[in-house]
């Protein structure tokens, strides 16, 4: 069985001096084992 997740998330801002601190970033890579509750990706406010 397989699960596909499709979602909207913040992408980099254009008007903040190139700061991409609010950009959503995956914190896994293909082939990684992951367990439910562990972070797939994060974004942070500057």
């Amino acid at each position: 069985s397989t699960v596909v997740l499709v979602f909207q998330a913040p992408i980099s801002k254009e008007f903040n001096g190139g700061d991409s601190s609010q950009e959503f970033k995956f914190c896994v890579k293909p082939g990684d084992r992951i367990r439910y509750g562990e972070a797939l990706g994060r974004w942070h406010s500057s």
Partner: protein
Amino acid sequence: THFTKKFKTSNARPSSLNGGTGKFQGDSFLVPGATVATLLMLGALHARRMYQDKKTEELRDKGVEFEFQPDVKASFLRLLPLRSISRCWGYLTSMEIPVWLRPHVYRAWGRAFHSNLEEAALSLDKYASLKDFFVRTLKEGSRPIDADPQCLVSPVDGTVLRFGELNGAGAMIEQVKGFSYSVFSLLGASPSLPTTTDDNVQEEHSGSITTTEKSKKSWWRVSLASPKVWDPTLSRPQRGLFYCVVYLKPGDYHRVHSPADWNILVRRHFSGRLYPLNERATRTIRNLYIENERVVLEGLWQEGFMALAAIGATNIGSIELFIEPELQTNKPRKLLHSEPPEERVYECEGVGRMLKKGDELAAFNMG
């Protein structure tokens, strides 16, 4: 030793069934012989599969990416009654196992598919059937939920196959290198699926603005960048559309949890085929994820749109929704199938189905 002893006994005492001639001794040896041969064959097949899995993982670690390559075996799968096989498998695995045998069967399963039996909420003899054991819950605290409000958590235990950003309505998700499928086909015609990023929307609205006017605007932004004229919408983060594909192996925990605080508005059930979903199948079967039976849940979270597609396979064909227990999947069906997806809008009944991050949502069942 048992078979040898039995064989010797048969030789010493010819069966009375054949008038004491001893002709039956060969037949009595055939049955256990066939059983042993079947077990050996299953063991050999399992060992071969484990060897191939290991080789695949080694190649993946080396960075080798597999390409789409349809083959004869994949074509042959189309001819098999996979739904009937799946339902039959479900029937067999729902049979009650004697209490004394349960721990042995489940430990064997755990060894074969690398399951961590220490995490099971109940002791092994409490699971009446393999089907019950397969959808076992976990001990409390086994899976701490990441509490960061600016993170999205995995909804399942599994292996991350692919992830990335999608662009526009015709966005394609790569099944495997050399073959992709459309996100619209996967989720169904969804009016709430964002077709452009916020950035593109802004560009579309300002489509009539000339390049000179655009550069003037940029200058104004730079020159007047003071708190008095600062427009908060300009620095508000824009949003893109992302995807992530996670594969659950047979030994994995098979319940699905909410990846975020999520308000589910619509459920769609696509009654499709039930091809296997292993690594080999992804390389050899076209449109695997959009042909297989699946349940799609769609709604909103703090950053906008979110949808989750739970896709069934031959061995794990039915999907049970805890937010809608009456939904039945993997039902017997006619040979010809071109039915549209069956849809239920939760929003009509109120505000949708609200879930907290980590809440239990669904389970994959055997058969």
